C-alpha cells in the first residue's frame, strides 16, 4: 500500500485518496466468486506434519521446510523427510482437490514428538507469514495459555498483511488457539459429504462449517484413508479461499471472508 495514505485517521481531503477500485456485482454468487478458477497463482501453506508431494492426491509440493529445535531456539531447515505423521498430506490433498493449480508449501511443525509443539507452531507460523503466503491451513491448535498472546499478535500481523489464516475449530469444551481469534477464519464440520457445501455460522466463534465427514484423504504410501474430523473441514475452506483469491487477487482477509459468507450454502449466494 502507498505509504502516503493515512494510517490512523482520515481527513476530509484524504477521502478521495483512498478510493478503492472494485467491481462488486449486485449479488455476489459462486460463479462470480470462483467460476472457472483453479487456484493458479495462489500460494497455500500447510502448517502441519509435513506433506508427501509424491502422493497422487497431493500432486507436488512447491517448497518444504521443517521447524526444528537448535538447543532452546527454533530454526527453519529444508524438509527432507516429507510427512512424518500423515496428517499434513491429508490436509494438502483436500486443498489440491479443490484448487488443483495452487502452489503448495509445507511447513512442518508437528511430528517430532509432543514436547515443544507450541514453540514450533509459533515459529512455523511466523515463517509462513514472512513468506507472504496467501492462505495458511492450520488444522491444529494449542491449549497452552502462554502461547496465546504471541499467536494472537501473529494472527493480527497476518490479517493486516493479507495472509489468510484458516484454523480448524476445537469441537471440545476447551480453551485453545488460534481458531478463536477473530483475525483467523475458524472452521467446524457439517455432516454432509459434498465438498462444495459450506455454511456460515451466525453464532461464532466457529465461523464456517465445511465438509469434515467421511473424506478419503491422502495417507502413507500413496494410499487413502477414510477420515472424519474438523482437521479436514479447514482445508476445504482453504481450497475455496485459494479459488476465490486466484480469480480476485488482492482481496483482503476481510473481503475474502465476506465472499465466503455471501456464497455459503445458507446465505443465498450458493448458486
Amino acid at each position: 500500500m502507498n505509504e502516503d495514505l493515512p494510517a490512523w485517521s482520515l481527513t476530509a481531503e484524504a477521502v478521495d485518496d483512498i478510493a478503492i477500485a472494485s467491481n462488486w456485482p449486485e449479488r455476489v454468487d459462486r460463479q462470480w466468486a470462483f467460476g472457472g478458477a483453479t487456484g493458479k497463482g495462489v500460494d497455500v501453506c500447510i502448517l502441519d506434519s509435513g506433506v508427501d508431494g509424491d502422493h497422487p492426491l497431493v500432486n507436488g509440493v512447491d517448497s518444504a521446510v521443517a521447524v526444528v529445535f537448535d538447543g532452546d531456539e527454533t530454526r527453519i531447515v529444508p524438509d527432507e523427510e516429507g510427512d512424518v505423521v500423515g496428517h499434513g498430506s491429508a490436509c494438502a490433498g483436500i486443498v489440491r482437490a479443490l484448487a488443483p493449480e495452487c502452489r503448495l508449501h509445507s511447513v512442518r511443525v508437528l511430528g517430532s514428538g509432543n514436547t515443544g509443539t507450541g514453540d514450533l507452531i509459533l515459529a512455523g507460523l511466523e515463517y509462513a507469514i514472512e513468506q507472504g503466503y496467501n492462505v495458511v491451513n492450520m488444522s491444529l491448535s494449542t491449549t497452552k495459555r502462554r502461547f496465546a498472546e504471541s499467536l494472537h499478535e501473529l494472527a493480527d500481523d497476518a490479517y493486516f498483511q493479507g495472509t489468510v489464516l484458516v484454523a480448524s475449530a476445537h469441537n471440545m469444551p476447551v480453551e485453545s488457539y488460534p481458531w478463536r481469534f477473530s483475525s483467523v477464519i475458524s472452521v467446524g464440520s457439517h455432516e454432509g459429504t459434498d465438498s462444495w457445501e459450506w455454511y456460515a455460522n451466525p453464532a461464532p466463534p466457529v465461523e464456517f462449517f465445511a465438509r469434515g465427514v467421511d473424506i478419503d484423504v491422502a495417507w502413507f504410501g500413496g494410499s487413502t484413508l477414510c477420515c472424519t474430523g474438523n482437521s479436514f473441514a479447514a482445508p476445504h475452506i482453504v481450497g475455496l479461499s485459494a479459488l476465490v483469491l486466484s480469480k480476485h487477487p488482492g482481496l483482503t482477509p476481510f473481503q475474502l471472508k465476506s465472499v465466503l459468507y455471501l456464497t455459503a450454502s445458507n446465505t443465498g449466494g450458493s448458486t
Partner: protein
Amino acid sequence: MTKGNSYHEAVATGMLPSEESHRALLQSIVDVARAIFGAKASSIFLLDTATDELVFEAVSGQGEGDLIGMRIPSSTGIAGWVLVTGQPIVVDDLQQDPRFARQAAERTGYVPRALMAVPLVNGENTLGVLQVLDRTKDRAYSIGQIDLLILFANQAAIGLDLLQTARRARAVAEQGDGREAVVARLAALLERSEDDATGLRFLESLESVLGQLAQER
C-alpha cells in the same frame, strides 16, 4: 515444584485413594465407552512427558490385560495425530492400510477396522488420548457420536489428572532424600502407631514452637 506444593502433596499422600482405585476409574470409563458404542475395544493412553511417549493405561476388550504399560512414541499413529493436533478424529477402513495393519499387529496383536480417538485435555494440559475401536457397524457416523465420546473424554481426563497427581505425591513421599517426605512419613507413622495420642501431642507442641519461630521472624 515449589516447596509449598511439595508439603501439600506429601500431606495429601496419606489421604489418597490407592493407585488401584484410580485405575478402576479409568477402567470403568473404557468399559462404558466400549459398551455405549458397541465397540470391540476401548483404551486410554497417558502421555508420559518425561519420555515423550504414549502409555496404555486402561484397556477394555481386545488386548485387555496384555497392553497396560506398553509405550509408543508420542506423535506416531492415529493416537499421535490426535495428541499433536488436539483434534478428535474418526478413521474407517484402517485394514486397507498395510503399514498401519503391520504396526498395529506388531504392537497389539489386533488390527481394527475403524477407530475413533479424542484427546484428553484438562485445563491447558493434554494428558493423553481415548480410543474406541471397531464400533458397531450399523451405527453410521454422526457428529453426535464424537460429541458423546468427548463427554467420556472429559471424565477420562479428570481421572488421568487424579492419577498423575497421586503418582507425583507418592513419588514425593517415597523419595528418601526429599526432605519434605518427612511430613508423609510422620503421617504414616501416626497412622501405624497404636498410641497416636502421644504422637499428636508431640506434633501439637512442635506446631506451637514453629508458630513461635515464625512470629519472631
